[in-house]
């Protein structure tokens, strides 16, 4: 990331490179991988051979980190795979607006207002309830390949 780009708050188009190549054999469970153009978390890796005396290949099962869809891929283990650059940033939650957006406080004191709340009822209520109770909440925002989403929530209020 160059300095100029760093001034823009929108992470969506910031990534100098959104993915990095990495040898398939080195990708482990719990790592990240791009499958069919989507950033995934690897939940299963297995290896097999192409033919009896052929080379090893890796079979990945990944879960899309944004949509939770399951994706699979097979890659020869000495070839390269794309690995997404997954970034996570913490912001303090300032407000939840009526139209489904959140207002977040950035590190340098500005606000970030372009992030939507999750549409899933369950996740939504977890955020709204905590905020409604007046807790001091920090949200972690995960961004990768031009998308971003709230991925975790933490109560930092005084005990």
């Amino acid at each position, binding site marked *: 990331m160059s300095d100029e780009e760093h001034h823009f708050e929108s992470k969506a188009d910031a990534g100098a490179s959104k993915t*990095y190549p990495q040898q398939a054999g080195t990708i*482990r469970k*719990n790592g990240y991988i791009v499958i069919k153009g989507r950033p995934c978390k690897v*939940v299963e890796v297995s290896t097999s*051979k192409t033919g*009896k005396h052929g080379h090893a290949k890796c079979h990945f099962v990944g879960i899309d980190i944004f949509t939770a869809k399951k994706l699979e891929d097979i890659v020869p283990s000495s070839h390269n795979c794309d690995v997404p650059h997954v970034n996570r940033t913490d912001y303090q939650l300032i407000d939840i607006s009526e139209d489904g957006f959140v207002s977040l406080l950035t590190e340098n004191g500005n606000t970030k207002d372009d992030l939507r709340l*999750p549409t899933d009822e369950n*996740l939504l209520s*977890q955020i709204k309830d905590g905020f409604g109770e007046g807790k001091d909440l920090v949200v972690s925002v995960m961004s990768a390949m031009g998308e971003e989403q709230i991925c975790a929530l933490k109560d930092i209020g005084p005990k």
Partner: protein
Amino acid sequence: MQGPGSNGLAQLQATMHAVELACTSIQMHINPAAAEATLLSLRSTPQPYQACQFILENSQVPIARFQAAAAIRDAAIREWGFLIADDKRSLISFCLCFVMQHASSPEGYVLAKVSSVAAQLMKRGWLDFTAVEKEAFFNQVNQAILGIHGIDVQFIGVNFLESLVSEFSPSTSSAMGLPREFHEQCWRSLEIDFLKTFYTWARNAAISVTNRIIESNSEVPEVKVCNAALRLMLQILNWDFRYNSNSTKSSINVFSAVARHDTDSPRGSECTLVQPGPAWRDVLISSGHIGWLLSLYAALRQKFSCEGYWIDCPIAVSARKLILQFCSLTGTIFLSDNGKMHEHHLLQLLSGMIDWIDPPDTVSKSIECGKSESEMLDGCRALLAIANVTTPFVFDQLLKSIRPFGALTLLSTLMCEVIKALMMSNTEEETWSWVARDILLDTWTALLVPFDSSGGKSMLPPEGVNAAGNLFALIVESELKAVSSALTDDDDDDYLHTSISAMDERLSSYALIARGAIHVAIPLLTRLFSERFVRLDQGRGVIYPTEILEEVYSLLLIAGHVVADEGEGETPLVPYAIQTYFADNIEADKHPVIVLSSSIIRFAEKSLDAELRALVFSPRLMEAVVWFLARWSHTYLMHPEEIKEGNSAHDQDHQLRLLQTRKGLLNFFGEGIQGRLVLDIIVRISITTLMSYPGEKNLQALTCYRLLHALVQHKHICVHLFSLDSWRNLAHAFANEKSLLLLNTAHQRSLAQTLVHSASGLMNSDASNLCIRDLVGHMVTCLGELSGKDDFKIVAQQPDIILMVSCMLERLRGAASASEPRTQKAIYELGLSVMNPVLVLLEVYKHESAVVYLLLKFVVAWVNGQIAFLEAGETAVVVDFCMRLLQLYSSHNIGKISLSLSSSLLSEAKTEKYKDLRALLQLLSSLCSKDLIDFSSDSIETQGTDISQVVYFGLHIVTPLISLDLLKYPKLCHDFFSLLSHLLEVYPDTVAQLNSEAFAHILGTLDFGLHHQDTEVVDMCLRALKALASYHYNETGSGRTGLGLHASGIMDPGGNFQEGILSRFLHSLLQLLLFEDYSPDLVSSAADALLPLILCEQGLYQRLGKELLERQTNPTLKSRLANALESLTSTNQLSSTLDRINYQRFRKNLIWYRRF
């Protein structure tokens, strides 16, 4: 039971109709819930006997009768204690009479049920009934079995005994809600007093119908009786004989076979041995009983063409099974006449069943033509059973008297036929030849596995050696053929997965056979190898067919098994057969094993050539090469054994020659030039597999874990490693080569561990430490530079950086886990210099759980290896670091909730958390151990470090992170509670000083643990409680404060009085003991905890006891409870001190108390 009046009759009929309706509607699936409720209520009604008997006698619906019988069983078992003796007897005789009267009824399952109810009730009352009463029942049964009342009743009688025996046999008995002792008493009593009688009855019944069966040409009803009798005899011989076999020590058979039947012998595991003891000799052996059985089966064989008989008809199957059971007969039943009687017995059996398997080619052909294979398989099983009870020599001799060849030859030809059949059939499914091969392989294993260290007794007689040699040659041929034919079906993944380890078992049986004829096997393998090597050489430059690669692959596996044993953590010896057989072959370089090994190593060396590697050495072949080298080098390479010469006991000529060959064999690859040369080749091959086979994880795993890891286990090999250029190259590449960063991170960890291990083999410790600094320097620099970068926070999330950091952390962990006393210093410095980077990484990667976990594991491994050696100052540094780490981790994770749409990602997140916490608990446990094991020169207190406080503080940080959900992971739960109870047991004084919040937290957890499912957890909590209470009691007894305010209770801010903790636990422990179901294993530890609690809180205990009594309304129970409570504290001279004796007395009291 009196006849019902008219009113009663109507009611009985109503019940019967209700039950019949319920049964039919269940069958038709109409309103099943209501129907089930009806049947359940029948079973749970008190005293339903009259109704049930009425149904049994009158109902037209068989299922209703079945249900009625089941209801009788349930009710009688439940109410047994209340029934009067007459009722008990009449229930049983009702059942018996019922089955006898209805013996010809077509609904067999109702009869079977009623007869099993009778058997169960008989067992339930077994210890109450007098001998006369039992006699009466059995008389009735005996009459039936004698056949006076006809065939059907005879069958029923035998059948009843079958259910009775199965009820009394511990593995098949049904539950009765009674203690184990009851079942054991019944077991014992039946075995001693009745089993043999039953056997005689069954035999007589079978004999009485034999003639009818043999004479008739079609199926006759007598077959049913005979079959049942054979089944009963088989069942009785399956009995786990306990009481007869070892009762007379003097008569223990000295027949050598007996010695090998210890339960821990590996040979006994496959086959159950039948050892009824000398009391059975007359029935089983001397009565000519076996002759009758064999002739019965021979007669049946003649009839297989007749109507109603065939090779798998029930009576034939039962007869064969019984014959098999006789083959397994052994032990003191035979006279101690040097095995003569046993041999005669086996010979009789063998000549009876030899036709099943001999001549092998005819048998095999007729099976291929469609004959059922079961008789032949039973023949193989019989051979296995006989092999299990004899030595190879006796086994071979057995057949000599009836055939011109020995049994080993027969075994070998039979197996050859089976293998030929196997080669012919190319199907995937399990054919008869598969099954037969496995049984026969087991037979060879049973014969050849040495059962004592000398191994001498399982040497084969000369004829057997030839047989084994022929067989091995055919086996190898068939394996090679199987390989090439398997290739024609395109790759099926299953076969690939079952690679080396899955074939292990079969291969090790092959190896046993090969070692039986070692002088043939080794040259054969050498020849087969060299043929293929030549073919590979000639074909240079063309693409090789996979066939030949696969053949070499299989040969490598077979050769590996033949020449060397699996070490299983120990250094394996050269196999005994190899040591002894080549005794005459003193010239080392002509020793067949050396010739074979050298040719394989020369072949392996070719993989270093890049061009050949691409052509020949596929990853799969390389796996076999690495596997062979690992296994071979473990036994032969620089073997540590010192050859002792002139040992007085072994100075015979043969022994001397033997020693010399062994010496020649081992010295050839010893620490001389040849050995170092081979070591160098092995190391260079390892480098190649690690660097030139990118992404081949399996191969690299084998190299790291099996080959290299095994090499550095030997100190004397380590000494040579660093003198080799190749090893130094490996170390250099590890620090500098990018390609090694592409290895699986776990393999990098193992490599780091291996390298550090090997450094400790250097001659002086300074050199070792220096060497380690070189090895680990790059990790320290790399992490230091990364974490020191200004923009590290920004670039840290890039995948390449994450990969780099993960690799370094894994390598650090590997190095840390290889810490040894002499290299401890260097490893300590390693950790010290990455402390700050580690904390920076923890901060930066707080969201990257995979990195955090690696980091924690490194710290755990490092602290664990170091803590015992640290001086006071160093300890303070380490402790401080650990606390900062804990606090940082906690601040990141406390109150954090993961949000994700995917449930599997959420559960992954939970698992990651669990693993983190487990690592943290391990870290605390390691710290804890400092107080127990400490090699430092000064006491740590000089620096003011109090380990107990540190660990409490750590626990205080960690505990809030552990949620109830996480405690569902058994390992975490276990770790957590064992740490907690350890702390409370060892440092109760520190607990006393905790502030009330921290204290409350610990107690809350203890309280939770007391009600946990897992008895081990409860046990640990009870131990902790005991420690707390006895600490308080002892302290206050000597005038100190003990737990002080925590014990006496405090006013909380709201002005409510909070009970002291000891009274709270007295409450909950009594609650647990009195009203809840708990495992009997816990009684002792509960007693240990209860006693000090009661002593501390005498007043409360009295009050609680009184309350308990007042709440009890039933006067009898009330007085029993009062007595029990009274005797709990006042019997057995219990005093109010906390010494060992007193604890023991109290334990007894509590155990007694439980019975009230």
